[in-house]
């Protein structure tokens, strides 16, 4: 299945792109993160991040479906 991945803050710096399409077998956001972390070497471990699926906070272990938009959310610092 194909997942659209969005990067922000230090994750965007590590990946060098704002977003990318990723091909992956059936799985969840934690598996997607591990696959991308192996390629990009993010500065933050998964334990420090939250994940959003289609613009809503989601559980790392909820199965993804083809066409989902996934964003890894570093600790926020707005305001």
């Amino acid at each position, binding site marked *: 299945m194909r997942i659209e991945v969005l990067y922000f803050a230090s994750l965007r710096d590590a990946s060098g792109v704002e977003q990318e399409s990723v091909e992956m077998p059936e799985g969840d956001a934690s598996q997607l993160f591990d696959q991308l972390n192996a390629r990009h070497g993010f500065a933050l471990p998964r334990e420090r991040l939250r994940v*959003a699926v289609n*613009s809503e906070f989601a559980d790392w272990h909820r199965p993804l479906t083809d066409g989902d938009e996934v964003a890894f959310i570093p600790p926020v*610092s*707005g305001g």
Partner: protein
Amino acid sequence: MGTGRFRIIDAALAPHITRAATRMESAAAGAFSVFEGRVRNEHRGRAVLRLDYQAYVPMAESEGDKVLAEAIERFGLLDAVCLHRVGRLEIGEPAVWIGVLAGHRDASFGGCRYVIDEIKQRVPIWKREYYMDGESDWIQGAG
């Protein structure tokens, strides 16, 4: 679909603040509280030159709308809006503006405080500080 009360803005905030404040009126309002967060010239003793804010815009606006709806519900507010900058900001510029309209001051102060605290916890916006010594850092977590 959001309520449009929380808006991410990629331009100087001042004219937007003026317009938003003018629109916040109600005959039932006895209190109007504002919180304006500005760019400070230091962070933990380091001299700050300027900031960059980045946001996951659609989610920041939808999550921000949820925060404002919660504040209205919990504190019985008449209205609550928020404007948040993205892009490059200089020292002294407004980065965030919250306006809260209520019948009385307790609700208005409380609602305003709730909104800024929740934004700092869960609205997907990130701040990068550029320091006088040439370095820069993404700030991780509420400051």
